[in-house]
């Protein structure tokens, strides 16, 4: 591949404090190192970096936890790594309001620790684990087994501050739990992989930690039966936080069973969990299981060495989508309420991905490549931007020089 000559980053070095520069070897993406890395100490420095980089025509890739850099198309150019881990402070936390405002480079783990002191949490379970940063959580909008039972990051975000490629700092939303003032730009930024700006602060609605949780599992002879059982569990309207169907291969990997298995996580008051445990036992052969299955699934979904696909299909099509993985060397599981079928494989080729995508689309769904080697993401569309005309129009206005994540959403985008 030939690239245009790299513009000089010297003016950037002059603009930013010397202590913010980091060695480029820390920041390789898809095997390519940038010319330089910078880790600003605050959002004013982020703004300075972006303003300068845009003026110079540099391509910048924002990052922090580095857990989702194998998503989207491989970058078309990569001159500067913008490391946001220096922005890791809690700005405001009012436990009685169930709201928290934090800087985007803070890890979910640090945030959860803080919230736990007041018996609260941000109810999200993104892959691979709580090393995901708040900014990464929003930029990717990734969700896990809780999605559908609990709101996703895009529902919990109350407002953000973002730095635009121009260096302008903008806010949308606010810190209150109910607010319809102005356009919800924070929702547009959520899941946009940094297409319109770099999120530097976010406010969230948080939730009380459930007093009790319990994980139960039930195995069935066939995948069909497991899916039907999962469906009955969902229809029982119990206080569940997750209902996931594991193929027999996945159940074996998790050391849960060697047959297709439904795992359920109950969460609520002790009384509600006890009652629901009994209700589940009446629905199917549910018995207590290890909660370790959940973090294991998260790690698999965020496996940096595998190809991970997520199909979104209507809940009625989950069995068919899981069936479509037969014959492929993949671990697959389905989160019933969100219609997500996650597939984890080592050696999936483009033809296999296209076949799975066709299976999802035939059922009114879609397929996204959540993580894969660059070669595969060049060969198959990892998942387009949506309405190309509108996204291009927005990108042309917010980032005309394509400073941020150049090419992530497609050629020239």
């Amino acid at each position, binding site marked *: 591949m030939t690239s245009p000559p790299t513009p000089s980053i010297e003016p950037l070095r002059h603009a930013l404090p010397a202590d913010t520069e980091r060695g480029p070897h820390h920041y390789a993406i898809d095997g390519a190192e940038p010319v330089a890395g910078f880790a600003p100490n605050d959002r004013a420095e982020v703004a300075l970096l972006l303003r300068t980089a845009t003026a110079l025509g540099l391509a910048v890739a924002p990052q922090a936890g580095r857990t989702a850099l194998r998503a989207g198309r491989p970058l078309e150019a990569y001159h500067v790594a913008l490391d946001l881990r220096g922005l890791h402070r809690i700005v405001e936390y009012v436990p009685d309001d169930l709201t928290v405002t934090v800087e985007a480079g803070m890890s979910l783990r640090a945030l959860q620790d803080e919230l736990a002191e007041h018996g609260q949490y941000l109810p999200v379970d993104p892959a691979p684990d709580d090393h995901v940063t708040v900014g990464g959580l929003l930029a990717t909008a990734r969700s896990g087994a809780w999605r559908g039972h609990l709101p996703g990051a895009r529902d919990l975000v109350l407002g953000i501050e973002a730095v635009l490629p121009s260096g302008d700092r903008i806010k949308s939303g606010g810190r209150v739990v109910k*607010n319809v003032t102005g356009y919800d730009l924070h929702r547009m930024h959520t899941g946009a992989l940094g297409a319109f700006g770099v999120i530097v602060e976010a406010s969230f609605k948080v939730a009380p930690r459930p007093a009790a949780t319990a994980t139960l599992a039930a195995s069935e002879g066939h995948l069909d039966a497991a899916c039907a059982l999962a469906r009955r569990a969902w229809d029982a*309207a119990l206080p569940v936080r997750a209902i996931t169907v594991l193929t027999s291969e996945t159940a074996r990997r998790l050391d849960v069973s060697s047959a297709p298995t439904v795992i359920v996580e109950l969460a609520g*008051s002790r009384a509600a969990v006890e009652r629901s445990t009994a209700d589940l036992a009446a629905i199917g052969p549910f018995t207590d299981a290890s909660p370790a299955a959940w973090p294991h699934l998260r790690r698999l979904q965020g496996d940096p060495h595998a190809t991970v696909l997520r199909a*979104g299909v*209507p809940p009625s099509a989950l069995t068919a989508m899981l069936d479509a993985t037969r014959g492929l060397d993949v671990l697959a599981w389905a989160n019933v309420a969100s*219609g997500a079928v996650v597939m984890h494989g080592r050696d999936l080729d483009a033809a296999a991905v296209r076949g799975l995508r066709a299976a999802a689309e035939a059922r009114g*769904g*879609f397929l996204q490549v959540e993580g894969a080697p660059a070669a595969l993401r060049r060969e198959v569309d990892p998942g387009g931007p949506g309405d190309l005309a509108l996204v291009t129009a927005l990108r042309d206005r917010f980032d005309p020089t394509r400073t941020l994540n150049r090419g992530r959403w497609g050629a020239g985008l």
Partner: protein
Amino acid sequence: MTTTSGAARPARGPERRPPYEALARDLRAALGEAHVLDAPEDLVGFEYDATIERARPDVVVFPRTTAEVAAAVRIANQHEVPIVPRGSGTGLSGGAVPVRGGMLVVLTRMNSIVEVSPDDRVAVVQPGVINLHLQEALAPHGLTYAPDPSSQRVCTIGGNVANNSGGPHTLAHGSTVNHVLALEVVLPDGRVARFGSRVPDALGIDLRGLLVGSEGTLGIVTEATLRLVRMPPAVRTLLAIFESVEAASHAVSDVIRRGIIPVAMEMLDREIIRIVEPRIHAGYPLDAGAVLLIEVEGVPEGVALDAQIVEDACRHAGAREVRSASEAAERERLWEGRKAAIGAIGGAAPAFYLLDGVVPRTRLPEVMARVMALSAEHGFRCANVFHAGDGNLHPNIMFDPAEEHATDRVLALGEAIMRVCVEAGGSITGEHGVGLEKRSYMDWVFTPADLAAMHVVRDAFGGRERFNPCKVLPGGHGCASGHAAEVVRHLAGGVYV
């Protein structure tokens, strides 16, 4: 918003321009004779929504299909006239008022429930479906669509999407945006586009989440795919009676502090209780300072426990009595007073101005005290019925428009109350929208850079000048400067409220 019970007054609006006749002719050719109105006597009913603002459209169209909406938009573009979408006209911020005339697109004929899928827990509806009609269609399946604005008997799903509407049950279930999975939209250039999917977290950039709540300025919703939830096995409604709003406000925070998020926590203050109770007989004590309606749901054992915790918190905060109902009829009766409250004010005062502001829940005691003090200072009675759990205030300022300068004084008080909300860390609207009414307050909460970014979005969608002009964002070609100035101008014409 202001509720009107007075006589009609002449609407403002641009002088009719000659091309409007050609516009009407082209629209008739596309939509049929019966579905295009342009006679002045037919246009009068479409001058207003539920606010004080009035303006007459040049032409009103009633499309039945997405293709007809798209055709009408393209025709209006050829004639270079403004385009304004409208549902039932229950909006509370002037969003459907055609301030610069042009074509009003009334979506009430697009009222089909296209699909209810219990298997996928989704409903697909046209924008003119009435919120309550959808609920009625879902009930036999044991399903419900969570957003329940108080106007649900008349408001449309399209209007709910445009305004990101809330309701009492927003506290646990979230606003409309959390329940919209996908949208079909006619964009300002007439192109039909789809956003989102039948399941959450669709591929690509989330323009669905941006479109919800954009108040008809970025496109016209022609179909919505909605997420449904199972009806809970058990529900319990509690009515807690307090000596003061302050004590009730403390109870709200105390419930949350104990780790319970009820599905609803609604407050009525003394003023509203005295208006509602004699008319509705919901059983609210006339000497109470405030009542809280609290609802919890789930499996029976969990509900019983949660209800006990709620009751303890209320008593701890000074509730003198806590009543509880789990049977549907009893619960309905407790809710009756809340649901009828706004209507009852209409019978108790010649006019009232309903405000919508939002503050952090913990600031409620001081903010409510400030609201009452300001009302007294300005010489008005103020009745409060609101979503306390969300910190979403709805002060109703009662007044007599016949009194001199009444409306100016009411608006001044409304503005002062909005200031209090913003200064407490809140915002200028929790669920009614910015529309026309609050455009001039936008710079209280947003910087010029924030607003510029919103203008950029509007520009990218292509509707800046003619698609629901003069709404949400300040400025705009041919738009008046803002709420107060606009309203004062209309007062000269007459009447209201």
